[in-house]
């Protein structure tokens, strides 16, 4: 024992080995370890900073790509990126949650590895799958806040966590007062878009909050539509017959996405693209 560790060269080699391991991202303490290397964390903040640097589209028109549920569809993610990169006039990509399937940090980083090849920034909202296990902590580390807003080209995007079932329907998710407050703040805002993962008509949406949430949207005069994921297929309609349009995204597995063009106060055009 003593003779073994007193051999200087072996001690030196072991020491250097340990130092290398400490900085080696292969050393994983648990698949539920929420940490991510600096270049793969705080992506919402980084993508918003990128968006801010981007020249505003000319005139009044804003065009963006709308998709969701990238969970474990890595092959489709590659083809999605290739297709979106050929679309003209796109300002950014919106992903309506369920970035991961198992709520694991590595999955979120795998998806980012693909989506970071987009020519434009991409923005996400948290999905129910992103909250499984330690996923909520991983999402916050890798992407960022569960509720946030940004304004681009006169359009205010309000991104909110509606995965009520993951919180045992505790009556606080979605955070309706927060949503109301964001919708009320219309300074410099021509139109509004709300995006969340679970649509309010879904059984995974907290039923006690459904009336208040849909009322908040109904009472927002500048709201163009609400964008959702979760159901894996495209749908557009007014499920509450209250004049509020809800659009559900294709999941990556459907090999289709939506291009949304908004202008004026509430005008929009919708195009579906196969890839």
């Amino acid at each position: 024992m003593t003779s073994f560790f007193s051999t200087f060269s072996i001690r030196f080699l072991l020491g250097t080995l340990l130092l290398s391991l400490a900085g080696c991202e292969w050393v994983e303490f648990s698949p539920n370890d929420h940490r991510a290397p600096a270049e793969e964390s705080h992506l919402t903040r980084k993508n918003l900073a990128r968006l801010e640097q981007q020249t505003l589209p000319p005139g009044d028109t804003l065009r963006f790509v709308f998709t969701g549920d990238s969970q474990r569809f890595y092959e489709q993610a590659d083809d999605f990126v290739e297709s979106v990169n050929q679309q003209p006039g796109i300002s950014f990509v919106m992903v309506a949650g369920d970035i991961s399937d198992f709520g694991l940090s590595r999955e979120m980083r795998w998806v980012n590895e693909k989506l970071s090849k987009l020519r434009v920034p991409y923005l996400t909202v948290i999905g129910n799958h992103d909250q499984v296990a330690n996923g909520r902590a991983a999402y916050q580390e890798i992407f960022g806040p569960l509720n946030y807003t940004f304004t681009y080209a006169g359009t205010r995007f309000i991104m909110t966590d509606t995965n009520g079932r993951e919180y045992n329907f505790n009556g606080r998710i979605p955070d309706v007062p927060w949503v109301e407050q964001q919708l009320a703040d219309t300074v410099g805002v021509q139109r509004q878009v709300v995006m969340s993962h679970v649509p309010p008509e879904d059984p995974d949406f907290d039923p006690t909050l459904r009336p208040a949430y849909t009322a908040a949207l109904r009472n927002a005069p500048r709201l163009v539509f609400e964008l959702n994921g979760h159901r894996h297929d495209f749908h557009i309609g007014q499920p509450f017959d209250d004049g509020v349009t809800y659009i559900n995204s294709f999941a990556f597995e459907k090999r289709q996405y939506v291009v949304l063009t908004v202008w004026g106060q509430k005008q929009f055009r919708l195009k579906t693209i196969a890839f």
Partner: protein
Amino acid sequence: MLRCAKAGALAAALFPLLAQAQEPIPGAGPFFLTVQIGGGIGTVAVGGGYRLARQQLEPEVLVGFVPRRLAGGPALGIITLKTTYIPFSPKLGQHLRVSPLTVGGMLNYTLGRRFFLTSQSTGRYPTKGYYWWSSAVRVGAFVGPRLTYVGAAAQGWRRTSAYAELSTNDLYLVSLLSNKTLSPAEILTLGLGAKISR
């Protein structure tokens, strides 16, 4: 990744393939203690086991811990059942044994309210199999080299082994197999450990 390559090269330098004829490892009783860093079973995991099958099989129980700061919430406790198979351990000089390849499997359970045995057991979800997997239980497999030092018979802890292992788990494997664009290297995890026995 550069650091990983450096660690790999150093590990290779420590485990040269100068294999000599194999004899059973002398001395030391069947009980052993283990400490492991990483490898998906804790920042640090400690435990022990009992050698079976002419000391070629090492079943063991480990208790791992991921501190609060690294867990992004309450600290994680991980209980692991693990078995290592050491097919051969040729001699290298008077005191050293080199096992260029050990293989094994593990099953672990992560404690805490965030993790469920089945999604059904939470009472939160309307249908059976809402989430088909268990977020608490992981099944894994690993391969890796090992270096063993066997001391003189009079010594207290006669046998000391250092090992490295590359492992993966069921969910990473499902991710890899369900598409063609992830590479096998992306689902691997490195662990480093030591075992001692009297």
